[in-house]
């Protein structure tokens, strides 16, 4: 069954007709040509499809596009300001935070969303004092990024990239 929806993707309102069965990920990639979110598993297990959905990081493979009619989405591509890279993108380049790059757009969106959660003081599974301030140690970064798998195993450099941005922002 078809539905007419509007998604605000990387700053542009896009109207499209989708079958209700279309995932948000497939709507972005196959209907709107937003190719930075990747399909790794299609079961919520890898994080490659992570975008910022209404300002928060979210997987898009276990969401129906029709259920997000009207949503504002920022993909990894949309984080850049034209040719000016987002500081998280820059840090991934500077630290070699990838090898094949397949997981990278999801990693970057997740990292940006994660830093905002930490800034808002949200604890993680490894936070000792649930009501205290959040300091992004490497353990904290690893735990908070555990929803993003990297088959190339670039984890050490991914953590380094995120640590650098977190330090600049005063959260590590």
């Amino acid at each position, binding site marked *: 069954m078809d539905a007419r929806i509007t998604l605000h993707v990387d700053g542009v309102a896009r109207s499209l007709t989708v079958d209700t*069965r279309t995932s948000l990920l497939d709507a972005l990639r196959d209907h709107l040509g937003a190719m930075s979110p990747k399909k790794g598993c299609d079961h919520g297990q890898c994080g490659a499809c992570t975008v910022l959905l209404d300002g928060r990081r979210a997987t898009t493979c276990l969401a129906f596009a029709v259920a997000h009619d009207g949503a504002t989405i920022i993909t990894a591509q949309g984080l850049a300001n034209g040719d000016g890279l987002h500081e998280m993108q820059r840090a991934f380049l500077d630290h070699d935070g990838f090898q094949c790059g397949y997981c990278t757009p999801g990693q970057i969106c997740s990292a940006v969303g*994660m830093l905002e959660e930490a800034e808002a003081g949200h604890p993680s599974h490894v936070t000792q004092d649930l009501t205290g301030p959040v300091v992004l140690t490497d353990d904290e970064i690893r735990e908070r990024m*555990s929803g993003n798998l990297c088959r190339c195993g670039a984890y050490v450099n991914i953590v380094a990239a995120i640590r650098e941005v977190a330090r600049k922002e005063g959260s590590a």
Partner: protein
Amino acid sequence: MNPFAYERASNAAGAVAAVAGHPGAAFLGGGTNLVDHMRLGVASPDLLVDITKLPFDRVEELPSGGVRIGAGVRNSDLAADQLIRSRYPMLSQALLSGASGQLRNLATTGGNLLQRTRCVYFQDVTTPCNKREPGTGCSAIGGYTRYHAILGASEHCVAVHPSDMAVAMVALDATVVVLGRLGERRVKLVEFHRLPGDDPWQDTVLGHGELIVAVELPALPFATRSAYRKVRDRASFAFALVSVAAALDVEGGTVRDARVALGGVAHKPWRATQAEAALRGAPATAESFRRAADAELAAARPLDGNAYKIPMVRNTMVAVLRDLSAEATP
């Protein structure tokens, strides 16, 4: 995936009417379990009624000192809520141990309670499974049982309930507030999920079209000293092998009261009433904690692949209680 119609509910009564009046309909929360099941062929609703725009997204303090959690509150927001963090730390910890950051931003409180087992046979439509297809048999019995139940199972199903959140909530004596066509009813969470018995396809006591609107937690002052510990195959982003939620009230070296619940052991979040009874009035020592664990585990019946869960539950329970009692003696 079968075709389906989609509706966005604008009020709770309308959502209930839409699903109750349509046998093939289902509520849609964050979708992180239902969409997966639809893709796997485990579920095939022909109408989805999206309830995420209903005004059930608040965590409120109750006059009694308890807390009311809207069914639409996202797992991430509930874990980060100040009331929950300060009064019921085991609940924040349980939520934070589940899934991943980007899934918790989608997953709702109602959907988390109703998520279905991760039994591999249940999720694989090519294998017999009494829960998915009544009467076809249980592939797990005599098959791969490493993740399965040690308590309360039946000859028809040995699956476990996968939720972390529900384990902490059952220890906290939560009540589920449900809206049906005839109005609201309240169900104790400990009675909300079922044991498999002869009808393992029925996970809970919820009827078709009944909508979870909220979960209420009673005041429990000693829960400020509580913890959730989850044992799993990797350090993060994995379901529990076993887990323990506990709160401990210790004074002068004696346990005055305790709450204990177990995850990964049964078809439902398991309230460890035998352990609690053994703890009340006992000295707060490792010996008492071991005895309490043994009291609970006396009824355990391991399968071929999961006998390891018995010492794992015992050790985890003793460790959690020991840490909580150490916090009590400065």
